[in-house]
């Protein structure tokens, strides 16, 4: 049996990689590293995501991952991105390289992420003037949530669940268009799915708990979206575990105490007032209506992506003026400056 020669056939080889100049690291994770790269021919800037993958490793090495080949996370991310190709709110792949042991994806460079919503101020509504005095405009909150819902509606329609929707994975272009990224955990919905998914503060209540099978559906992505809207209103991670009295209260306990209905089997003995946990959300009637429909404890009552897009009032609130956009971009740049100065 002759080995098929695949070197000449694989997408791109190292030589084409040399057309790109590797710059600073802009992201790091279990999957690998994301670099900012510049094309030497055109001067255009891209993001290069390098999956660590033991491709074609020596056969006789005793390592367990020696015969894994292309990692399943890579296979899943790339097949999901191929299936979703062409959607304006999902990140696109320009090119694919096999660089030694790495598989590298060339993607457009998005300068901002949604982490700007954790600015510590949130959105304050001044009812005296009937006009919002805020650091992040309400239109931006509606804008990003509608665009994320757009991407989710498309994904869910293709049977794909993102499973790791956090502000870090929602990228923003220069003009604040949302690009949902990092599909390393995304997969086609299937009968057997691992419940250990989604970064903790954005994890839906049905994913927590004991070892019993988890009843989970594409509604887990909608929960994450609801948490992101609440985060944006409060300016912080609302379900981050926190110190209270002598002990720590976990994300799950906070969720149960604030959102679990009284007639539910998991109803807590003492519940917290939701007005204290997310005061800014509760103050604004429109946001309150949306957030409470997304953060329902029972996942079968949760709003789905295409239903959110049918909410005319919310979609209309998503119109951003130039002034609003500049305000948000200014905020992001301030935040990036603060982070950069912290590093030195």
């Amino acid at each position, binding site marked *: 049996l002759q080995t098929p020669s695949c070197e000449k056939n694989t997408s791109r080889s190292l030589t084409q990689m040399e057309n790109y100049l590797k710059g600073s690291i802009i992201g790091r994770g279990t999957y690998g590293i994301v670099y900012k790269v510049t094309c030497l021919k055109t001067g255009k800037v891209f993001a290069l995501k390098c999956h660590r993958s033991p491709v*074609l490793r020596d056969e006789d090495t005793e390592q367990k991952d020696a015969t894994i080949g292309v990692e399943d996370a890579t296979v899943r991310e790339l097949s999901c991105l191929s299936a979703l190709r062409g959607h304006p709110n999902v990140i696109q792949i320009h090119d694919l390289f096999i660089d030694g042991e790495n598989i590298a994806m060339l993607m457009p460079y998005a300068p901002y992420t949604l982490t700007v919503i954790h600015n510590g101020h949130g959105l304050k509504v001044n009812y005296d003037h009937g006009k919002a005095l805020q650091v992040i405009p309400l239109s931006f909150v509606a804008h990003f949530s509608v665009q994320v819902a757009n991407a989710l509606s498309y994904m869910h329609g293709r049977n794909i669940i993102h499973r790791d929707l956090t502000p870090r994975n929602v990228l923003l272009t220069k003009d604040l268009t949302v690009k949902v990224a990092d599909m390393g955990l995304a997969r086609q919905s*299937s009968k057997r799915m691992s419940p250990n998914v989604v970064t903790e503060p954005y994890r839906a209540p049905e994913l927590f708990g004991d070892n019993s099978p988890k009843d989970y559906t594409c509604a887990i992505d909608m929960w994450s979206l609801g948490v992101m809207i609440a985060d944006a209103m409060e300016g912080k991670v609302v379900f981050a575990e926190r110190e209270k009295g002598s002990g720590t209260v976990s994300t799950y306990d906070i969720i149960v105490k604030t959102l679990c209905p009284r007639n539910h089997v998991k109803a807590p003995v003492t519940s917290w007032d939701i007005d204290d946990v997310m005061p800014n959300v509760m103050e604004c009637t429109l946001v309150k209506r949306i957030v409470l429909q997304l953060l329902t404890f029972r996942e079968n009552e949760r709003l789905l992506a295409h239903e959110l897009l049918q909410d005319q009032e919310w979609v209309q609130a998503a119109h951003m003026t130039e002034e609003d956009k500049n305000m948000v971009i200014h905020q992001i740049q301030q935040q990036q400056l603060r982070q950069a100065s912290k590093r030195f």
Partner: protein
Amino acid sequence: MEPQLMCCEGNRPAIRRAYRDSNLLTDRVLHALLRAEDKYLPASNYFKCVQREIAPYMRRIVATWMLEVCEEQKCEEEVFPLAMNYMDRFLSVEPTKKNHLQLLGAACMFLASKLKETIPLTAEKLCIYTDNSVRPTQLLQMELLVLNKLKWDLASVTPLDFIDHFLSQLPIRRENRPILRKHA
């Protein structure tokens, strides 16, 4: 729509199972699936137009072998139809030697298993099933070749994806659905 609870008992108790997602059983999703299916269809005439050495009976032999492996390894039910889809799509674009057909089948199962299973098949296990006529390095090379030829577009729509949609449209009692599904 009533949530349906099905198939929660695993063969391998270490794996926790999720339930079927009834949110995905709407007409909207069905139409999206039908539209998407076109993208993943193999050419129906590849034995005539693309392949020189490979005849339909060879595909049948390899397919039978693949089904046996999937059943013996208790793979998820999606793995086999998905692997066949990859194999047919590969054969629709790439003239292949007949002595590479089993290697191709193994690589397709390898990939389908990675996409669908919590604990995927290993290369060694697959090589043992070929009676060691395939080495793990060859399998990994073939994997890359398949990925490249299919342009990484692996989230195929297979006939299996439609079964739950059709079942949910039929006027049958819910407790009978799992049995009917098994025979579909």
